[in-house]
């Protein structure tokens, strides 16, 4: 497929207190970013089960973002630290399935960082475009 035409499907898990609020601020500030992303709101990034990520890739997602509060800022004290450990493990699992690790990304976005949210989404979208379609697709 021509990379210019390839429009990846990207899922983002955003914690309610920081990243989702950051996404809202990007909206209020009318910061434009690629429309490939679909956000799923969760209360804490610590809620993200590796299974959700695996399911997303099996169903054809081209990239998955997990966005939480900056370290030390977790609304639930330490949920993001759990995520910090869980995501690298999930990445290793992805590798075994033949999915590039870069398709899963963990980033911290605070409620005040609308610009950062837009930047993270923009950068990740172009990264996934570069990677091309999810290798599991069609297999």
């Amino acid at each position, binding site marked *: 497929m021509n990379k210019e035409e390839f429009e990846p499907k990207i899922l983002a898990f955003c914690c309610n207190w920081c990243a989702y609020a950051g996404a809202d601020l990007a909206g209020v500030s009318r910061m434009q970013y690629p*429309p490939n992303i679909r956000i799923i709101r969760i209360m804490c990034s610590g809620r993200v089960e590796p299974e959700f990520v695996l399911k997303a890739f099996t169903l054809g997602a081209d990239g998955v973002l997990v966005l939480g509060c900056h370290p030390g800022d977790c609304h639930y004290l330490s949920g993001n630290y759990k995520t910090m450990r869980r995501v690298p493990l999930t990445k290793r699992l992805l590798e075994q399935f033949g999915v590039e690790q870069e398709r899963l990304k963990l980033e911290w976005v605070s409620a005040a960082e609308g610009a950062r949210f837009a930047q993270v989404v923009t950068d990740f979208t172009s990264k996934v475009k570069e990677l091309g379609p999810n290798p599991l697709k069609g297999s």
Partner: protein
Amino acid sequence: MEGKEITLEIDSREVKAREGMTILEAAKSAGINIPTLCYHPALTPFGACRICSVEIVQRGRSRIVTSCVYPVEEGLVVKTKSDRVIRDRKMLIELMLAHAPKAEVIQELAHEYGVEKTRFKIEDEENLCILCGLCARICEERMGKSAINFVGRGVNRKVDTPFHIQTEDCMACGACAFVCPTGAIKLEDITRYKPLPIPLEFDQGLSSRSPIYIPYPQGVPNVPVIDRDKCVHFLTGECGICQEVCQARAINYEQEDEIVEIDAGAIILAPGFDEFDPSPLFNYGYRRYPNVVTSIEFERMLSASGPFQGELRRPFDRKPPQRIAWIQCIGSRDESLGCGYCSSVCCTYAIKEAIVAKEHVPSELEETIFFMDIRTHGKDFDKFYERGKEEGIEFIRAKVYGVEEVDGTGNLSLKYVGEDDRPSTDEFDLVVLSVGLRPSQEAIELGKRLGIQLNKYGFCHTSAFSPVETSKPGVFVCGAFQGPKDIPETVMQASGAAGSASTLLAPARNTLTIKKEYPPEKDVTGEEPRIGVFICHCGINIGGYVDVPEVTEYVKTLPNVAYAENNLYTCSQDTQEKIKAMIEEHKLNRVVVASCTPRTHEPLFRETLKEAGLNQYLFEMSNIRDQCSWVHMHEPEKATEKAKDLLRMAVAKARLIEPLKPLSTPVNHSALVIGGGVAGMVSALTLADQAFEVHLIEREGELGGVAKRIHYTLDSEDAQIFLADLIRKVKEHPKIRVYYNTWIVDAYGYVGNFTTEIMRYRGRVIEKIEHGVTIIATGAQEYKPKEYLYGRDPRVLTQLELEEEIARENPDIVGCDNLVMIQCVGSRNGERPYCSRVCCNQAIKNALKLKAIKPEMNIYILYRDMRTYGFYEEYYQEARQKGVIFLRYDPEDKPRLSQERKNGRYLIRVEGKDPVLGEEVAIDADIIALGVAMVPPEEARELAMLYKVPLNEDGFFLEAHVKLRPVDFATDGVFLCGLAHAPKSIKESIAQAKAAASRATTILAKETITAEGIVCSINEDICSGCGICEVLCPYGAIVVNKERKVAEVNEALCKGCGTCCAACPSGAAQQRGFTRDQIASMVETALVV
């Protein structure tokens, strides 16, 4: 808009419009994008650029028209992207490229339309103007000026002022430059006045703003304000564009300030502070050199929402700096500037800024902090200082006396005198002035108006034992207006002020409240989901970019959707009535609203559900504005597709949501306070005065704690009189029961319903106390030193022992000739890396007392950093003036003590290296006083286990959040205060004790406590009792039942983060409202149509 409805076809879609609209407006309202250059919604259409050309078909004939001026007609067929249109637009782009080759907006259009180069002759390579006329029109039509207009004809046509001279007609409002799509307008060429950008106050003037603006991104409420002094409408009556374009009609120019009278029983003053303005300090070059910034400006420069989007750049040339210097104590510790106090926070924030800056600059960053004493006396701040050193920040103890720019480079040369007394020079490319805190002029005036006593600097005066009370009864104070302080202390004091106010107002509690009644909740169990979907246009905020009717039609095809409609504003009051009616009419048992963010509007819609008799959790929200229409404004088709996806996901989840019944438990209205010291007693009294019953537990046979040994404070108030009065009040209070010689043996339960088992009189009596909240105020003790001959020579005392001897007027002590104080004994070392905060002030206090008794006594204070923060700095200066000698020592080269016999007297010789002189110093002392560490009691560990609350590495209790919840534990219903939290003064302990009581009141004042509805639960059938969840839960809400071998959730403690669910290997742990199936269904529907 008025006028009769007209139906036309745009790009094969049926579009409804009103008579009088143009094709462009009709297309925009339908989310169809047509490129424009000379169009502006606030100006008369001009049809100059023609880039908005479209093809229309009328009576079988097709032609090209300009959509911004062509009115809609019934049955009109419009093509916005036909081959002919594209061909015409390409030609126009080529013409404009030839005329204005440098215009970025034209280059972008060219790229979009695949125009690589122009075939026409380029007249002027540098030209930017495309002759769209927006500038001239806005000046004439909206600003009422016409300072610029088109001049010349044909190829000579251009925008200019009359006679090409700067004109007085122009008021330098900048509207022309603002609307210019290419940046062709240079305000300096037009106006005779100096164009001044309006500085954005929040960015410290490092960026600019418009006259209507949102003050800062997280403001509450987050709405724009109009700066009347800068707004053209207020200045001349013209413009008015904002009122016209605001769809919600929220702008009202008639609004005036009004005087509102409020009946209040108490007033809390929290006016904050101003930072010191270093402009008058000529030698530091602030405002003379662009690369000299204040610490607050630097803070904005580091911020992702700041003027440089979080990329650290120098203001001078926007290059990333490589060498940064911080100069401390700018506007602090300087009586000549009217600020003889220490601002308390600057050392820590400078270290923070230096550490954060390293994260922002990719290359190696060299950082130096020039300081007098590093005062990181806050809880755990000394560890932060050590981390700063490890990360390579250089700390130079020196006085900087001059900053000068190095010609042309923007770099700055710093001249300073270090401890060696020799002047040195060093070059940096950015200098940050660590400015101090001072009371704002408004706060001083407010204080005067209220008739409260201010101190000599204009801060609010408070006495040593009433830290939140002003001199006027019923008026309380908190925050930096009471004295410079950091965020944790400010938040503590704020709660403390609220505690004092609520004690005063306790009799009036709940006298002005009204209880809301709801209809009984419908039982929907077993019913097939019938989902009602309400999709919001939000004016044009969503409707202008997302095809809302199309999305509505799409949603109707989704499974279980029983009803769908779209609304102009779904959040409006009439829509709430509509939702309720539709729930009734269509027997809806789930509701989905697609509009803005649940973070602001979910409570409103949940309330509507409750009013309709539905469980409030049968609701799901889809954010198609903030996360769709607003962020994909240029891609309406894709935004519409995304909105459909988001709704499909929300509907999928809605099919699976269940009613939730948050646990509601009655509250026991009594409190258990552990520790009968000052903190424990003050919090007990604060609660008892509000008529709550208090059980006060003390291990010893009497009340008072460590304060029994404190006789006077630095500001010369008698601590023993205060203590005796406090003990009497506690003992006499009918609502307080004191338990002496009492130990806690067991504790269980949860917020609102705790049970504590106590053991009295060495185990002879075991009692159970039931209570709703717990306050831990177990205090701390003086460290018993092993060093410096302590315990081996009776003339070596601790500071508290010295104080007791002074109070007793022991002639050997108050009459001695040479007294040496050694600071940081047992603090700030490997074993106890924290600062004990009170010892420097203790030393000064005792030194001043001794000097008052015997002025000729030689007193030497051997210190590492003198940490006389806040107003204590004055006493440090006083001690120096009275001849107390301060000698600094390095921790690597501590003072050495030896016993000596000299001239028939038995002396202690103190030897050490003075880093200032660089020489060995020896003092023959009669008495040695040690400033020893504060250490937490051993039993803290036991209590921590019993109440499931954490300790920090040093054994002090660890609060839920250092800044935001400084007296709470993560475990609900348990609070902390006093020395159990960290070393602090009596005054600070009292403020914190009131704060803990105030936080406890928020629970005790309730009849019942309703827990979070979104909590976790365990499916016991598949739980193996492995206990992974128990370890992960930050709230101690999950405990594995050893007998039944299953995990059990205490819903009263669970906060619903879902971390346990993500880790549960068997899937037994589930988060209500965010179950595995619900989230998985969203993942699935997002990807599979």
